[in-house]
């Protein structure tokens, strides 16, 4: 283009800035990029770059109960966590955004607190607490723990979605005689669908990837995929982990892409 004002000083700063930024992008992405080719290597050695490509590692993964059971556990737990925290989180987020009520600040603080409380503390506390009820090592205990850390994310995301809605629509529905609950179901929820879907995706991903709480709460039968992976990393770095990592990354990628395209689909989003 001819219509650029050529400013050597500015150009130099930009060049330096871009070079630095690119190297940071490389640093951020290199761990992700490196695992993928390894996942398609052969079963016996962990080399980079692999000399041969195959699906051996994925086959090994899906054929060993030691990996498949944790995978199924994680999926089960993530589904339960997602549905329960979405239910509680959506109702609460709506009320927190739209209404003023006694104890609002207190309950917000408690719900959001897992964002700053280090997970180890929650993990230890939940472990001690659930021991009292003798529900340790159960799937239930892990789901409850996950709800605790996933709920704040869900509430924040739905609140952000709520803030973009025009409250006059709700007001209008109430003027026309709809009760609060009917109004919520017929007016608010339909408009919230994009936020609900992305909140659900991120809730699923957070629960699926959650490690520390599961580390404290899981028993031999309820081991989750990240716990299994942590154990594997601690004892022997086996090539199957590359396949596991690739699967987990694929999940992250799907969630990110879905969330971004959902955001594009919402005209209200600036």
């Amino acid at each position, binding site marked *: 283009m001819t219509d650029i004002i050529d400013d050597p000083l500015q150009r130099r700063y930009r060049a330096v800035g871009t070079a630095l930024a690119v190297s940071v992008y490389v640093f951020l992405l290199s761990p992700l990029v490196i695992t993928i080719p390894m996942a398609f290597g052969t079963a016996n050695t962990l080399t980079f770059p692999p000399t041969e490509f195959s699906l051996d590692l994925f086959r090994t993964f899906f054929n060993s109960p030691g990996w498949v059971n944790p995978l199924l556990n994680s999926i089960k737990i993530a589904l339960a966590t997602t549905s329960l925290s979405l239910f509680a989180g959506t109702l609460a987020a709506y009320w927190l955004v739209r*209404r003023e009520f006694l104890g609002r600040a207190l309950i917000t603080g408690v719900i959001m607190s897992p964002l700053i409380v280090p997970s180890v503390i929650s993990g230890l506390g939940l472990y001690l607490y659930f021991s009292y009820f003798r529900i340790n090592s159960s799937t239930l205990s892990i789901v409850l723990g996950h709800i605790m850390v996933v709920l704040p994310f869900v509430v924040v995301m739905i609140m952000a979605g709520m803030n973009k809605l025009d409250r006059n629509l709700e007001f209008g529905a109430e003027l026309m005689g709809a009760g609060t609950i009917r109004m919520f179901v017929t007016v608010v929820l339909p408009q919230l669908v994009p936020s609900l879907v992305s909140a659900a995706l991120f809730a699923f991903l957070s629960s699926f990837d959650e490690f520390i709480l599961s580390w404290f709460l899981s028993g031999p039968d309820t081991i989750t995929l990240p716990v299994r992976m942590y154990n594997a990393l*601690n004892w022997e770095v086996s090539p199957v982990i590359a396949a596991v990592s690739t699967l987990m990354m694929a999940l992250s990628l799907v969630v990110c892409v879905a969330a971004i395209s959902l955001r594009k689909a919402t005209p209200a989003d600036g």
Partner: protein
Amino acid sequence: MNMTSSIRATAIFMSPAALIAIFIVMPPLLYVVYTSVNGLAFSLDLYADVVASKLFRQTLITTFVISGISCFVSLVLGFVVALHLASQPARRRAILLGLVLLPLWTSILVKCFAFMVLLGREGVINSILSWAFDAHIQLPMILNRIGTLIGMINWQVPLVVLPILASLLAIDEAVYRAASIMGAKPARIFWTVTVRLSLPGVLAGLLSIFVMSLGSFMVPALLGGPKDLMLSNLVDYYSRQVLDWPRASTISVILFAISVSFAAPLALWRRSRRI
């Protein structure tokens, strides 16, 4: 619209979350505190004991050193990225932001595994170096401080980019134009406008990654050596290996207090800015 809504409606909308808050979120913390003071006997002996212990002190220092260094480096790297993102046209920014968000939403375990492969004694980087210098190079880059820092920085950078980017994008573009018309050179504009006006985002990002890094567990456990254990690892050690729950609880409470003392100013400051 009546803002103080009926108790019944509030109960319907808030009760699931309230039940979770009351029966799941609060008890563990209370339980930890309860255990740490030896239940109703209420004694602070364990605290005195823990604070006097050499292992604890060493770990506390390690925790602050690792968190401090990694947060500072992450801040600088994050600022570079945020600056670059802010200067891009909207479309390209969205794509590049995806490159930052993907690592953010990838499990730390995955990244730790990748760094083991990359930085190990026979890892990718050492292999490349060996090949390049035609020698058998085995730089120790994991199971030590360097590995820990690299791992920590890698997950902190994306977190710090977002608030900085938000405050950079909030700067009125006309202010830049005004500054350059008034004769300021790029370096002056950078310091007096860009850096100065992004400080809120910088501070928010820095505090939040610092609070999070105080509680890190996986990176020091997987990429660090015995000297790089942080407080979370110590809690884990006492609870799972020594099975000394009270001591683990005591350390937890101390860690919690430290985290809150850094998170509270952030929360208060955010609230004061919103009003």
